[in-house]
């Protein structure tokens, strides 16, 4: 009993720490990555007593991102504007960060791990209706941005909040439709089960990943996901040339850090969802619970521990890859106009999602009969 509780607690802590750390690393990834894309040098100044230079290590901006910036951010004045709604102003950043973090409870990060007679499912919470939980929690996330904008008593912040909530509610539809198509394909709402059903291979060599069943849904989910995280090219809610900084214009210090962390945690979340639904989650091609079975070469037997660790590593690799893809998109595309955003969401993505859903249904019935 107590051991189970401890294992659950450990899984939860590991998942949250992984997400938070990956989100922070992404901050650095984005600074140096954008520098790479734009042929700049990027952050390379801050150093601690010049230790790196004396040792001959090139300054990669690590100190900037992980020491100097957080230090600066958290020692700033926590500013609340005059006549702002103090309660909501304080609540909003946490209302924004919390839903994103708890979503990871249902995202599986590995297969079963067998320790002695105990089988540990590498997922924080096994939930039969995991997809519904996901959508419900993401729905709460809207209020963070919306109320943050409203409580600041600033018209640009309010405009940013309105834009953010309208955008998120619009793209949640496309996201939901894409996810429902996947759910129909695999016939379950449990994310761990969705991963399991992506195991195996066709013709002995083509992995049965979701992308092969649902290529359109993949594009829909990725697009809607980037829009949900409010990043370029969908960053009208914080468009700095129009709205100063959008819904977090009036935030400073730790509260603004919470908003920023939300952005990066959402990037990680979208990557994790795309990897889970379309790229087999923790599945490694040709890796089965008993070991590798390579087509035309033969098989290698592996102990359970190695298989589980390989799965976790594969999931991490896929997540990092999609994080990088999103950073690439962010620094490559220009910003949409607001009407273009609504046009894309309602007149392109939504009909495509519906057509995809109908086609999926027809194929499923045709295959079954």
């Amino acid at each position, binding site marked *: 009993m107590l051991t189970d509780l401890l294992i659950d607690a450990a899984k939860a802590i590991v998942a949250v720490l992984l997400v938070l750390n990956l989100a922070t690393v992404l901050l650095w990834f984005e600074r140096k990555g954008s520098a790479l894309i734009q042929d700049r040098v990027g952050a390379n100044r801050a150093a601690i007593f010049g230790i790196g230079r004396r040792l001959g290590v090139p300054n990669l901006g690590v100190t900037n991102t992980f020491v100097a910036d957080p230090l600066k951010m958290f020692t700033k004045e926590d500013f609340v504007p005059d006549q702002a709604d103090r309660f909501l102003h304080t609540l909003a950043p946490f209302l924004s960060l919390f839903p994103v973090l708890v979503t990871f409870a249902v995202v599986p990060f590995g297969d079963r791990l067998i320790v002695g007679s105990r089988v540990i499912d590498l997922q924080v919470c096994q939930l039969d209706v995991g997809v519904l939980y996901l*959508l419900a929690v993401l729905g709460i996330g809207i209020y963070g941005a919306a109320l943050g904008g409203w409580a600041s008593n600033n018209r640009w912040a309010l405009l940013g909040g*309105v834009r953010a909530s309208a955008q998120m509610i619009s793209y949640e539809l496309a996201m939901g439709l894409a996810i429902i198509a996947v759910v129909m394909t695999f016939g379950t709402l449990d994310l761990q089960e969705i991963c399991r059903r992506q195991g195996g291979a066709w013709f002995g060599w083509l992995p049965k990943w979701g992308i092969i069943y649902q290529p359109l849904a993949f594009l829909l989910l990725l697009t809607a996901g980037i829009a949900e995280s409010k990043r370029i090219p969908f960053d009208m809610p914080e468009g700095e040339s129009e709205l100063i900084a959008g819904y977090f214009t009036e935030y400073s210090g730790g509260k603004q850090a919470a908003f920023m962390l939300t952005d990066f945690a959402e990037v990680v979340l979208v990557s994790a969802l795309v990897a889970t639904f379309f790229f087999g989650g923790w599945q490694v091609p040709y890796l089965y619970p008993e070991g590798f079975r390579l087509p035309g070469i033969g098989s290698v037997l592996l102990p359970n521990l190695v298989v589980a660790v390989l799965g976790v590593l594969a999931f991490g690799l896929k997540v990092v890859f999609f994080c990088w893809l999103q950073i690439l998109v962010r620094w490559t595309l220009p910003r949409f106009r607001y009407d273009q955003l609504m046009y894309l969401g309602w007149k392109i993505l939504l009909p495509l999602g519906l057509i995809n859903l109908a086609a999926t249904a027809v194929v499923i019935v045709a295959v079954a009969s």
Partner: protein
Amino acid sequence: MEVGVFAFFAVLAVVSALGVVLQRSPVHSLLALVATLLAISALLIGLGAVAIGFLLAIVYVGAIVVVFLFVIWLLNLQRDPGEPGHLAAKFFGAFAVAALTAELFAFFVRAPVGPPPAPAGYGSVDRLADLIFRDYLVAFEATSLLLLVAVVGAVAVARRWPADQPRRSGAGASAHGELRRAERA
């Protein structure tokens, strides 16, 4: 659901429902409404209606209440300075509410005690879908028609017709039309 957990969510639901009614600022009322709905959906999940509990959170918290928020913003409602209202209406209103409460309580306290253990698969999506798409199919199709009519009606009622206003602000009006459609989620 254990009694302690039930008590927690029950108190949360009652306190936040009181918040909906008593808060002066509509946005605070709205936040209290969100808390009430989340507490109720947690209670539904505790009763074994897992799918419907999450659906309640998705539909109400994720869509309907956001539209309330938009209307509050659109009307630019700030803190209520205090409502005049008729004292008599309030008095008789409170009286009627007290009578209703007493009646409901008297009625419900005698309800069967202790739910039977839930059968396997109770409240699962399979069971729910089976009922909706078999026994309640006509009602289901009728609600989809109702939603369609409601969406068209809402757009028709809330729209600024060209005759009312010669120039309408493009962004606001179109975003608003989109919101109505978001209802269908």
